Structures are given as C-alpha cells and as structure tokens.
C-alpha cells in the first residue's frame, strides 16, 4: 500500500517560516508605514553632517551667541531682545522654517537646533539600536542557559535576574551612569572615557536584560519539553545539537519580536539619562540633551524641546507598531498550522 503524497500543492520552493513571515509583514500596511518612517528618520540622521555643512552652513557644536544669519536678504541676530513687554534679556532666534538658516531656531547657546536634532538623532538611534542588540544577546544567553539546563544554573541566573528586576530600571540605570560617568571606567588595561557612547549602551542593555531574558527562558523551557525535543532525544541527538538545531531556531522569532520593543525602551532610557546629563555628554547631542537645552526656553522657544520630543515619540511609536507587525507575522503556529 503506497500512496504518493506531498505533491498535491503547486510545486516550487517551499515557503520557509521566515519567508512566510516576511510576506505577512509586507502585507501589513501599518507595519510597513512604520518601517518607512523609521528608515526615513534614520536616513535623515545619518545625513546630519551633510545638512549642517552644505544646507544650514553651521557648526552645531560651538556656541554662537554673538553671531547673526541672513534670512530673505535681511541680517538677523541670533540672540534677540525678549518678546516680553519690558524687552528684558535675550532670547535665541525662533524657528524660521527656512531649511538654510535656523529651521527650528537656535538654542540658548545660539546653535542650530535642526542640525543638533539630526546629530542628536544619530547618537540616540545608535545607542538605542546597539543597546537593544546587546541586551538581546545577553538575554538570549541567560534565557537559554537557565531554560535549557535548569537546576542550579537556572537557580543562580534567575535569582540574579530577580535581584536586578527588584531595582527600578531607571534608578538602576541612573546609579550606574553616575558612577561610570563621574569616574570613567578602568577595566584592566582598558579605559573607557566618560564621554564614550559605550557607557550608555552597556548600561541600558544591562538594565533591560531581565525583561528580555524572562520570556526567552519561558520559551526555552516550553521547547525543552516539546515533543520534537523528546523525539530528538529518542533519535540519540546530542544535547548541544538539540540546543543548536531544535531550540535556538525556535526562539529566534521571540528575539526578533523583542528587538523593536527593546529598541523603543532603550531610546526612552537613553533620552532620560541624557536629559539628566548622565547619558550623552556635552557638546555632543542626543534627543535627551536637546530637550534639556530646551527646558529653560520652554515658554519663549518651545520648539527646542518639542522637536526632539516629537522625534522620540515618532520613533518609539513606529518601533512599537513594527514590533506588533513582527509579532503577528512570526506567529507561525497561529498562521500556518493547518489540519492536524
């Protein structure tokens, strides 16, 4: 009794789980729009030097309180008398909405806010993407080790995660940042200066490890008891190969879904640290530091704080929408389990 089966579907390359997920994601309009916006913002930030040198003709890192710029043929002082009835004190120029000169106005040191926004975005995005990647790497390691090996390994790692979890994230990040930024970091022959971006990257990655490791651990524990792992054991597959071939490919979806959400969290954390002057160090900019610059000008020149604020909101929102799209696309059990 031999029945030929398996050729009922149209022949061709079988759609793998990743390809299926990719197709589902492409069909997801909100997720694709979010991705487009995200790429646009990233591209704009990458082009920051081009904008500063060739369009705005300004140096966003040196203070320029005595200077002036020309707008529609007129010479305008960067620092102008205040708008208040007594005309006391000076305010930086407001937004001109003119790309070639102080598009979003100047900050209290007379620097071009638009140019700083783009440069700040470079740092903010670089830090949040790297921190998210590093965090996922560490979380995957912790989650896989404790989920797969269980026992004492799980005990030690899980308690460590619990301890970290018990400390509020921001409090933890702030404490670590204050120590490392005030003293720099010396590990053996390596010295990390306090203005090195590695400091916020590593700190932010570290504080979010418990949040990412827990779902990974849960997934690995489920997989460890999955019937196909039992089947692999009954075939005599060594443990390391089970880990590599049966466990890791099945947690990759979990990791991919975590990535945009962690990036959003990292961006918020980075902004908070920079706002408190313990993230990106002056004169370098990040969206958080620009908000801090704008804090004192909030009544007279609100755009200084609003622009980076909007940038943060946009990126966090798009990352979340993208994350939802990825989660829907990668849920293979739900989308492609047919029959039984």
């Amino acid at each position, binding site marked *: 009794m031999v029945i030929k089966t*398996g050729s009922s579907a149209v022949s061709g390359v079988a759609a793998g789980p990743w390809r299926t997920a990719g197709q589902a994601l492409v069909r997801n309009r909100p997720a694709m729009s979010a991705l487009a916006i995200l790429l646009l913002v990233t591209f704009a930030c990458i082009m920051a030097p081009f904008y500063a040198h060739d369009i705005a003709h300004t140096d966003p890192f040196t203070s320029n309180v005595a200077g002036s710029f020309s707008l529609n043929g007129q010479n305008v002082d960067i620092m102008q008398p205040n708008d208040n009835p007594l005309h006391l004190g000076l305010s930086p120029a407001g937004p001109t909405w003119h790309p070639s000169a102080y598009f979003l106005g100047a900050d209290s040191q007379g620097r071009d806010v638009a140019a700083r926004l783009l440069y700040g975005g470079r740092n903010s995005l670089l830090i949040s993407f790297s921190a998210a990647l590093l965090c996922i790497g560490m979380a995957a390691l912790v989650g896989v080790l404790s989920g797969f090996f269980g026992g004492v390994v799980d005990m030690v790692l899980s308690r460590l995660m619990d301890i970290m979890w018990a400390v509020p994230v921001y409090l933890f990040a702030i404490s670590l940042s204050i120590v490392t930024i005030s003293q720099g970091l010396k590990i053996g022959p390596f010295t990390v200066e306090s203005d090195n971006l590695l400091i916020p990257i590593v700190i932010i990655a570290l504080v979010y490890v418990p949040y990412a490791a827990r779902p990974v651990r849960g997934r690995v524990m489920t997989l460890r008891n999955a019937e196909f792992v039992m*089947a692999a054991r009954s075939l005599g597959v060594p443990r390391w190969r089970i880990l590599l071939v049966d466990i890791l490919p099945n947690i990759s979806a979990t990791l991919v879904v975590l990535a945009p959400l962690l990036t959003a969290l990292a961006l918020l954390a980075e902004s908070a640290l920079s706002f408190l002057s313990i993230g990106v160090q002056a004169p370098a900019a990040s969206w958080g530091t620009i908000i801090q610059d704008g804090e004192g000008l909030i009544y007279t020149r609100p755009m200084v704080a609003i622009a980076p604020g909007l940038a943060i909101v946009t990126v966090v929102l798009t990352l979340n929408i993208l994350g939802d799209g990825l989660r829907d696309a990668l849920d293979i059990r739900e989308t492609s389990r047919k029959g039984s």
Partner: protein
Amino acid sequence: MNTTLLHAEGLRKEYKLPRGQTLRALDNISLEIMPGEVLGLVGESGCGKSTLGRCLLRLTELSSGTITFDGCDISSLNERAMRPLRRQMQMVFQDSYASLNPRRRIGDLIAEPLRVHPDNNGKKRSSSTIEARLAELTELVGLSTSALSRYPHEFSGGQRQRINIARALALSPQLIVADEPVSALDVSIQAQIINLFTDLKERLGLTYIFIAHDLAVVRQISTRVAVMYLGAIVEQGETDAILHTPAHPYTAALIAAVPEPVIRKNASRTLLRGDVPSPVSPPSGCRFHTRCPKAQADCAIVVPDLRPLPDGRVVACHFPLVNDP
C-alpha cells in the same frame, strides 16, 4: 531468534508531588518482547501506557527496575552511553505535528538520525549516502521526494505521521515504540497508517510496542496484548485469547465498551461506572476493586499477583473470568 529483544523487570516510576505525596505512574511492571512480535499496550487515558513506552526507551528516568535490551542492561546507562543504542530502538509519537520541529525541512528532519549517528564502520555518513537513504525512506513510507524540501505545516496529519515513521526507520532499528500513532488521525487515515506499520514490519522484520487506547486498532496489529490499569499490567497474553475470552473483568469491560455495528439483544454488557481512582492514592488490595463488577470482600485487602492461566496468558485477578484448571 529465540532470545528476548527487550526484557523489563519490576519497573517503577514515581513522581514526587508537593506535600509529600507520590504519584505512582508505573507499579512493578514486567514484560518481555520477542523479536518480530507486536505487543499492544492498552488501557484508559492516564493509566501509564505512554510513561511505560518512554521509560522502556529511557526517555523518562525510571525510579527502579531493570531493562535489558538485546542482552544488555540499559537501565542505568546515562544519556551519552544510551546514544549508540538508540540506533536500535526508535519511537513514533502521537502528535505528528508536535514531534516535528516546525522550522526544519522534512529532508533535514528525516536525515537528522543519519547525521548524528556514524555508519556501521564508525564513519560519518556522506551527503550522497544520506540522500540515497532519504530516497529509500520516502519510497518506503509512501511519500514523494518533493516532500523533502517542504516544512511540516504543509502536510496533513497522516502524511506527517509517515514522516515520523520514515525518521524512526532511518537507522534501521530493531524495535519501534509507537505511542498512540493513529489516535489523532481520521479513521480512514488510521487504517492507512496501520497498514503501513504492518507492511513495514513484514518487509523489515521490525518489532513493535504499539500503544493504543482503541482495541480495534490493537486487534489489527498486535500479536500480544498487555492491558494496563492504574500503572500496572492486569492481563497479558495472545491477542486472540484476550480479546475473545478476557480473563480480567477490566479487560472484559474494555471490550464491552467498544461500539458494535450490530446490536446483539441478549449480549450482556458490563459497563464500568465511576472514574479511574487517582494514582496518588490507589485503592488497597486489587486496584480495580472499586469499579469491578465481580469484586468480593477479599479484593479490597489482598493484592492479586499476575499468575499464569493454562493458555499461557497472565492475569492479576482473584476471580478470573476464565476458569482455573
């Protein structure tokens, strides 16, 4: 071919529960299986059939007891020492989807045992030998070779079970433990898969331990049957003898519960009432006495041993339905 292939003696499996309780999943189970035999393991859900199957292959740790496979005591081997022996014993699981890694192609899934085990000369198999073997295996179980580049979710349950069987056959094992391989399938597909099992047994000289809760399935495939109740074997013997003249009241009740297409008016059915007692606190004496239609006062006190009847079967009952000599 008169040597026992698998011999299990006094298998026990206990799970520790909170509050000091223990769940006795397997209680003093002994069985023997000869090469070429098909032993059907039947019983209600939760009676320990699957646990027994997994323990026999050392996939679940035993609490005590010995298992001898092909003359070699495997009950205390660790996972690494078991690995070479796994070539001789394979398993087919009930859930054909859950037992296939959803992220791997069928070709990789079936080739997995060939990749992790060296060939008979102790050398790693070359990819061309593996490919040739894959072609043989797909032919053997009735799959087309185009299936090899596909993923598990693209197949129906019956096809997936063929994939599982192909994978289990990859290393030409002697023994296959099939854990309810057809219970999740449609009846028409069930017949196909059972025919496939029978066919493969004859062509390859396999030995099966076939776990099922459906007596019709067991009747078709088994040469011998072991009936389990609450973690213990209550009756064991030739399929025909057991299914026609059950000696244990529980076996009789199981057979009576099989729906029949023709209603016989004067056939008396002894249907069981009540639920299976909890294996955490099994009944005293004969574990079946709480539901047994023939139970007497003694049954609640004295544990019945498995004792042989004249036709060669063994039964654990003080008052077997078949007359004692």
